[in-house]
């Protein structure tokens, strides 16, 4: 994860993927499992930050109403 746009939707999908990975594991690969846990923790941390830190931006747009021309 670098500076590129963080996508919360993708992060959630990845997390779901990690859970499925655990679910479908027949052999116990403890090392790989730990890697997944780390990856998941990073994703969760990043997502939380993304979800909570950002303030809303408010922009009032000035719009000219075209006036009806005389006949």
């Amino acid at each position: 994860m670098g500076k590129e746009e963080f996508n919360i939707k993708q992060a959630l999908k990845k997390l779901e993927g990690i859970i499925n990975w655990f679910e479908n594991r027949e052999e116990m690969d403890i090392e790989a499992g730990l890697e997944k846990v780390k990856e998941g923790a990073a994703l969760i941390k990043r997502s939380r930050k993304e979800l909570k830190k950002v303030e809303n931006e408010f922009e009032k747009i000035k719009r000219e109403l075209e006036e009806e021309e005389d006949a």
Partner: protein
Amino acid sequence: MVFFIAKGGNRVYNKTMVDYLADGKIFSVSDYVKLLDEGLRAFRARIVGEVSEVNPGPTGHIYFTLKDEKDEYLIRCVIWRGRYNLYGVRLREGMKIIASGEPSLHPKYGFKFIAEVIEPAGEGILKKEYEALKKKLEAEGIFSPERKRPIPEFPRRVGLITSWNGAAINDFLNNLGKYGYQIKFIDSRVEGQAAVPELIGAIDYFIERGQIDVLVLIRGGGSLESLQAFNNETLVRRIASCPFPVICGIGHDKDVPLASLAADRAVSTPTAVTSVLNESWDRALADLSMFEKEIIYRYQEMLRKAEFSLEDFSNKLSGQFGVFFQNLEKLSTQLKDRLAEIDYSIRNIKRSFVVNKDLLLRGFKKWTDNTGIFLEGVEKQLKIFNPIYQLRFGYSLVYSRKKLVRSTKDVEVGEPLDIRVSDGKINSEVKGKTNYGKRGI
């Protein structure tokens, strides 16, 4: 003539003209007509009356006369083509309407009331029009559920149309979660028929510029009359044709505004709109906690399983080799017993040594012979349990990098192998490998 000066806005009256009036200045006809026209603009008003003499002009503008029901007073009016089409009110003789606008004095055509807004007046008329339009649009499928688009998950760019002065915008902003929304707001009137042009202009702005995930239209509740703009045919169609999903949060009494019916999602308060927008964000937050717990739980479960299978494996191992261990134990007790016997015998011999040397020697020889036979037997049995001994039956032990090879996974193609057979060692190399899966053979 104070109102001349009082009139504000974009037509600021030239004060020096008023000064000239007071001075008794002589005006040209055109200057005087211009002066009157400017002055008349101050009489902006809403007039209720009955329509008579409706005449569409050559350029599409509609000329009509408004009069009182009883008196003979009348006023000549015009509504520009664009506005007329916008409101969807078809003027007919005898129809009661409210016209909002300002009077003007044209240099050639004389006095006219320029109606900027027209709306039907009178009990039940609005309701009738509402029902008729609803039926028409319903038949066209404008409100059908199949046309509705889902509100996108995690919306960020929100177009907002409402009045800057209303309570709606505060309710909306106060309840909107802090999820980094980019709100593009266009201030628009929302009250009555007069709001139609601004509302449509605002929607058009977003249609032209795009760059929003969802458009939000909100206003507080009101009567059918004050919500008229949201029952305007052009506006309703415009909402239905937006390239992005539209959420309407318009309060209402009994009759749901047609704008709401055409929107992709309709709720009845501005606050409820924020719930719709926050929905996926809120859920994501909840999901995160869930995922966090789940991942930890599952990893713990994996560890537990690993621990269990280790235990299971060692149980199986000891089960398999149990017989071997049992035999060994049996042998060792037998040995111990024998040794004890030997010990006992030796002491006996020592004691009776003096008594009969020859006899004793003979007896001792016999005993030692017997013991030798027994020990030989034990030795043989032990040999059988020696893995190296097993090699004589054709089994062999394969080593790779000094480690015993138990699985195809333990070696790589091309690796050297040492094969231990009964009488020595064979040097070999892995040419290839095939895994028979879990079941082995």
